[in-house]
């Protein structure tokens, strides 16, 4: 492990230790927050009992669907927008201000449009993740050296082949950065939507537990969400790093 990694680990351990002490000596009311060791025990018994498996599967499944749609649509849109200069000039300022839009405010409207099922939640996950993928894909495509495009033309490659074999591989590290954002955003989108108005999923369960002072359910769920998003993020980061290393960039 690197030195920075060790310090980071120590920092997290110190914060957790402090929290543990604060709860044990009563500075923090156990009704507000539980000791970290208790959260882990609760998480274990929650998973072992299996009573929330359905909610976990629903949320993770919907987030995965939102993630996949956001990445595939984002990459394809990035490729198209990159080719159309006018469209790009029109959209660039919108992308820059996009994340100022409170997407969740549209949730009631989305329920009207898409019904009461999972669709509005997935849609919000996609809406949040999609633009991050587009922006990073465009950034990567801007950096494809011109000489590679000339090479493609000399080889008689059509635009589709050029995208598949030259521009996308060349832009891959940037697209992965976009995908990392999409993991976080699709989870936030789906869980946030469940929070507001839904009858199932981890967001709903957290909200329900919160209203019932059920800390033994709320904190383990939060930990589970954190663990899932950090794990996926680290996997993509590792992939990204190996790509960059191969290119002598890290």
């Amino acid at each position, binding site marked *: 492990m690197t030195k920075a990694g060790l310090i980071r680990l120590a920092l997290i351990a110190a914060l957790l230790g402090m929290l543990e002490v604060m709860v044990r000596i009563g500075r923090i009311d156990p009704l507000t927050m539980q000791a970290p060791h208790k959260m882990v025990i609760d998480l274990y018994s929650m998973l072992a009992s299996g009573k929330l498996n359905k909610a976990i599967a629903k949320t993770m499944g919907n987030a995965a669907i939102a993630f996949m749609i956001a990445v595939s649509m984002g990459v394809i849109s990035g490729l198209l927008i990159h080719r159309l200069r006018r469209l790009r000039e029109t959209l660039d300022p919108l992308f820059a201000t996009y994340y100022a839009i409170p997407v969740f405010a549209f949730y009631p409207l989305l329920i009207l449009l898409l019904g009461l099922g999972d669709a509005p939640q997935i849609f919000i996950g996609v809406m949040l993740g999609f633009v991050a993928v587009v922006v990073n894909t465009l950034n990567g495509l801007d950096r494809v*050296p*011109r*000489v*590679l495009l*000339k*090479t493609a*033309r*000399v*080889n*008689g*490659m059509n635009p589709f082949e050029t995208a598949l074999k*030259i521009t996308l*591989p*060349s832009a*891959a590290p940037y697209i992965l950065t976009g995908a990392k954002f999409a993991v976080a955003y699709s989870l936030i989108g789906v869980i946030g939507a469940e929070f507001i108005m839904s009858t199932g999923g981890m967001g709903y369960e957290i909200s329900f537990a919160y209203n019932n002072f059920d800390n033994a359910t709320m904190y383990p769920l939060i930990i589970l969400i954190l663990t899932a998003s950090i794990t996926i993020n680290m996997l993509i980061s590792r992939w990204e790093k190996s*790509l960059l290393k*191969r*290119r*002598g*960039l890290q």
Partner: protein
Amino acid sequence: MTQPHIRLTDVEMTFSRPDGAGEDIHALGPIQLDLRHGEFFAVVGPSGCGKSTLLELMIGLSTPTKGSITFEGKPINGSCPDGIGVVFQEDASFAWLTVRDNIAFGLRRMALDRREQDERVEKALAMMGLGEFADVYPSQLSGGMRQRVCIARTLVTEPRLILLDEPFGALDQQTRLLMGDEILSLWRKTGATIFLITHALDEAAMLADRIGVMSSRPGQLIDIVETNWPRDRDSRIVEEDAFGAVTARLWRSLRVESMKAIGKKDARP
């Protein structure tokens, strides 16, 4: 076999300004040029004289405003004909592919059986001295080695005409001389016609059978120098008196043009 390998007839290139304002830029021409089968032709000229524009026209990346270009008797129209290979000045290696896959890139698109493809790749690896680097990525190689990868990638498609756009421009002088030797031996082994664009007079004088001198913009051929070197030659030719004479003649033709290119309007021969 009196037909030239590639023929440029009255080729001119004019760029209009993108915003539509101001005068059009007359970048090139008119140019007349016939390349013989199997010759080594070099073009030298001041910077900005349209050398690279000329190359882009010859590989069909752009279409001349006036005139025509025919390769082996057929006109070049908007795409690069089979049989022409290019090596660019910039590093065009693919960072995400190993050296071997880089070299095989163009071949994989050809209708050849896989064994023949693999044999050609191995041959090119050996010929360019890349054998031991076959499975590494370009980022682990020096600039000179990466340029060899690009040359090998072009070679495996067995082009009959090879265009080189200042391929050694980014390399140091010693490496350039040695790469020159390698290009000469490739030229002899493959029997291809070579068209080399360079700004280095000594490089042109050392490598080429004929050297075309281009004027400043709009680029035209103002002189063609025959070197009369034997086909079997290498970089040691720089020791010959005739080498000095060729370089001197090139500079005599180019000096005024180069001065114009850097903005000295009152340049006198």
